């Protein structure tokens, strides 16, 4: 959790480091979209619990797929359109594990990690409501 921006390329380099067993690195980067005149997003988290929830789901991903290394960065504070919000980077020997674990982590970040978005459009802010599609996306990992 951090307020500062991150460098995707530098994070990938750090993830792999000197390892020679990594054959695939999958990254997901979430950005602020200027939907319907949105001028900024402010992200709030629960210091301590957010980190614990993320760590728990990284551990679960590591137990479900043969992944070698994981980086999750989530920004908080006020972010303007096109700013990066979140990075999930997963390294594995083969691509399938990295793709699946990355998708799993993003689905759980959206539905379990204590983070809240407030949207700014001109005057005042509105808290984002939960999307059913995000809940369904997370649920499918329990069924398969």
């Amino acid at each position, binding site marked *: 959790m951090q307020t500062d921006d991150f460098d995707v390329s530098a994070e990938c380099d750090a993830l792999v480091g000197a390892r020679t067993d990594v054959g695939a690195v999958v990254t997901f980067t*979430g950005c602020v979209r200027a939907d319907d005149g949105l001028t900024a997003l402010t992200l709030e988290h629960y210091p301590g*619990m957010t980190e614990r929830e993320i760590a728990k789901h990284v551990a679960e991903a590591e137990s479900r797929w043969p992944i070698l290394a994981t980086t999750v960065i989530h920004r908080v504070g006020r972010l303007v359109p096109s700013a990066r919000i979140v990075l999930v980077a997963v390294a594995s020997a083969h691509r399938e594990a990295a793709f699946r674990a990355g998708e799993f982590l*993003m689905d759980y970040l959206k*539905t379990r990690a*204590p983070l*809240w978005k407030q949207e700014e459009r001109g005057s005042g802010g509105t*808290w984002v409501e939960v*999307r059913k599609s*995000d809940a369904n996306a997370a649920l499918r990992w329990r069924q398969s």
Partner: protein
Amino acid sequence: MTILYFAWVRQKIGTGEECVSLPAHVMTIAQLIEYLRARGGGYADVFGDPDRLRAAVNQEYAPFETIIADSDEIAFFPPVTGG
């Protein structure tokens, strides 16, 4: 007991954190919700509709029937919307 509030729950109550001494009859999160709702104002607004809330005890999600103690850190917040 420390109670934390986040997002619109924090805004409606007007603070992100407070210390509350629990009366003896408040033993579960559901009873704490009822106790806080009775304070009126922003509390009544937030705790009048518990279906819109999630709770955590000591930084773990907890169902409303969870038994709580004075030494616990309780948090109330809306369903999450990060990522």
